[in-house]
């Protein structure tokens, strides 16, 4: 039994509820206990660090203090939250920066609380480790045979590489390996870490639409039925913009975008409904029904 502090961030309580939901079901099945950090605050996301560098560090630093107090690793399933926490831990090495952040936090002694030592885990670090994949494979009751997917990591899980230490900056494979365990056919593709447009979704939606189209195009070219993500931002940009892409470019994708935890949940035997997959903007249940029908006719 593993126990982690759980930092949902705004997304998993809002636009990415299905991520939160599927994550909790999957964690429960795998014997992982999650305790939501009481009193957590916003990670600052792009807004904070692009306007006030110290604020961008102070917000995650406060969350790290809460996590350090509980003396257990903290899971941040949102790639943005994870990224901000890791970057903050790195930046706090610098005494002058630490001092400035401490002043913003009304004098908390950050070194004494151990904020740099608390282990911050991404979703993939938690679920795609060798041990966890072995455990997960035992719970697969309904392998996703016939589902062709590409894994999309985005930027926030791999950059900056010297801080996040991904398995490979340009060709990460941890999610691929995990989804393979779920029985899906994982296709190699070159856009694993290409940009989705991220928070430009608000200021320059046209760019997000163009980049999303590029990603969806490549996924379709290599023969994928769906894209798998581990980032609410990537998910949102790909899932919610397909109608706009159609309106602007006349190209219709209807490509489902799954959270990796949703595919795990499906393979573990939960229904799409239980996993709230029906809440996606781009329909993702039809393909699952089709898959079921295929299996039934073969079986």
């Amino acid at each position, binding site marked *: 039994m593993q126990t982690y502090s759980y930092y949902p961030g705004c997304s998993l309580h809002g636009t990415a509820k299905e991520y939160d939901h599927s994550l909790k079901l999957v964690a429960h099945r795998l014997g992982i206990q999650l305790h939501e950090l009481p009193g957590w605050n916003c990670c600052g996301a792009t807004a904070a660090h692009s306007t006030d560098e110290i604020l961008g560090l102070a917000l995650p630093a406060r969350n790290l203090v809460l996590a350090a107090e509980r003396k257990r690793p903290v899971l941040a399933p949102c790639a943005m939250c994870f990224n901000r926490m890791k970057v903050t831990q790195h930046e706090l090495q610098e005494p002058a920066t630490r001092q400035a952040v401490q002043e913003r936090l009304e004098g908390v002694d950050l070194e004494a609380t151990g904020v740099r030592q608390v282990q911050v885990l991404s979703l993939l670090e938690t679920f795609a480790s060798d041990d966890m994949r072995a455990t997960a494979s035992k719970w697969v009751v309904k392998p996703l045979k016939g589902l062709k997917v590409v894994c999309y990591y985005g930027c926030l899980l791999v950059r900056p590489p010297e801080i996040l230490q991904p398995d*490979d*900056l*340009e*060709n990460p494979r941890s999610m691929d390996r995990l989804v393979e365990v779920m029985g899906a056919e994982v296709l190699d593709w*070159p*856009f694993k870490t*290409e940009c989705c447009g991220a928070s430009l979704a608000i200021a320059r939606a046209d760019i997000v639409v163009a980049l999303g189209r590029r990603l969806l195009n*490549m996924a379709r*070219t290599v023969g994928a039925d769906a894209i798998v993500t581990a980032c609410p931002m990537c998910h949102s940009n790909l899932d919610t913009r397909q109608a706009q892409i159609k309106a602007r470019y006349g190209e219709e994708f209807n490509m489902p975008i799954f959270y990796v935890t949703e595919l795990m949940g499906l393979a573990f035997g939960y229904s799409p409904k239980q996993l709230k997959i029906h809440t996606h903007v781009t329909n993702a249940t039809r393909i699952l029904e089709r898959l079921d029908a295929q299996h039934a006719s073969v079986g």
Partner: protein
Amino acid sequence: MARIGVFVCNCGSNIAATVDVKQVAETIGQLPDVVFSTHYMFMCSEPGQKLIQDAVREHNLDRVVVAACSPTMHFKTFSGAVQRAGLNPYMLEMANIREQCSWVHPDKAIGTDKATDIVAMAVGKTRWAEPLFPREIGVTRRALVIGGGIAGIQAALDIANAGVPVVLVERSPSIGGRMAQLDKTFPTLDCSGCILTPRMTELVQHPNITLYSWSEVQAVRGFVGNFEVDILHKPRYVDATLCTGCGECLTRCPWKKYPSEFDEGMGTRAAIYRPFPQAVPNVPVIDEEHCIGLKSLREDPSRDKPKCGACQKFCPRGAIDFRQQPTVSTEQFGAIVLANGMSLFDPTIYGEYGYGRYPDVITSIQMERLMNAAGPTGGEIRRPSDGKHPRSVVFLACVGSRDERVGRPYCSKICCMYIAKHAIMLKEHDPHVQSYVFYMDVRAGGKGYEEFIRRAQEEYGTVYLRGRVSKVYPEGDHMVVMGEDTLLGMPVRVEADLVVLATGVQPQPDADALARILGISYDGYGFINEAHPKLNPVESNTAGILLAGTTIGPKDIPESVSQASAAAAKVLGLLSQSTLLGEAMTSWVNQTRCVGCFSCEAVCPYHAIERVTLRDGRLAAQVNEGLCKGCGLCASACPGKVITLRGFSDQALLEQMNVLLLEPTAAG
């Protein structure tokens, strides 16, 4: 009583501007035993030296102090003057009042006081000066060349043609090096093999040259004029005295699918192979790692026959010998030329370029093999994935050059030129080919080089895009190169059938290990350091070890060849002497008081301390004066104070300190 003369140099205004040289000469002239003291504009000039010589004779001086620049600059000049005046050259003492005084002090009063102290100390020290006599060392008239690339070949031929015997050691199965892999050479587009192979043949047939291929230098002992070198001869498993090079074994070997090192993985070879058809010597080698027969014998030594043995069965001369063992020979040399060459940067670290992930991303040296008529495709340029002739080719410059991120901040110097060569040759092979080059700057310094780049652009229509590439990925049956054109300030996208990475030059992976065997220094990358980058460009900092080619740093063929000839000239100069003068300022051990702790041995960087058994059976230290460089570490380390560095006796150094600390001088 000593009779000391002091000569203070103005060095124009270099010293005189911040040191009152007249006052220094006068003050020092008051010191006991100083019978003559003066200053002069340029002491190193002819009249300056004559002034010293005349004063020695006139005042019957027995010791001379020159207060001027650093002794590394002019000790030789002034000791020569002293010697011409009839004194032992080591009766000269230099006081450095330039680098260590005038150049670092803006204030004339302070500078003058300090200069006075420095000169007074030198006067103190010189009271203990003794005549020293360098030893004469015999010279072995035979040279070793390490590395059989074009630099090694050139050096060996130049030395041998002057009548001096040469041994060339090459660790691969054939000489020829990088140049043998190339198709054409820039900027003249000479066929590389056509100009190289006659030299290779000349070398192997030369009566003064012994070639040891498939051999490595294992250990080097001794010193200039007297090196002793252990050479490892790896087993070829082919008896070179029987083999005629007919090549029957190569066709008979059933295990043909191993990637060829010489073809950079673009082609395959058998488990018994020669790297290329014109290999010298033309004797194949069996690959220990992959030969089934060798493996079977190694796993079960009691077998009387190897498992496969096809080559042995079909060899018309019975030259295959699976029982060959490595041997080591020890040979004597007077001088060594190191020309062990370079390796190329491994671009897999640039994940964004996809080398190793996508078959149609290759390196420039692989491109050479594809272009070469003797290469794996017979000179037809076919891309690895599907064998198609590429129509659009993108070159990426500076892959592993000028990039601090990958630890290679330096320019590899040759890439701009070979990219242009490839672009030109591609068009010559197929006029429909369009080449693109992503570059940072085009660096084409050299005779006819800039013109060559122009030709690639203007006559051959190569498109040069100034900017770095962010990503290379496949799309359908072609590659897409995403990059930036910094002149347009726009991202660009180029579709390519083949992407070529111009990988940079780096040292051989084990260059540092070989440098340690030779006892020479190397830089942070592993390139060998020259004794002086401007004035001793082909000498290492160990006497008798010369350098040539890319072992020093990135360079092209003409530069490597020039260096090789320069190194050969240095070797010939050295070996034309029957004896050499050793270092006079060496250490010596008072063996009657040595307790044999060998602290000296542990600190000596030149391995000059020997262990000798005295007549009474005691073990004591002894200094090999041929190896000793006079650094003095042993003298400092000796706990019993029984080691003395000649010219730097304890008495002399104490006297120097006494002058500074006890006697009030001008400085007070």
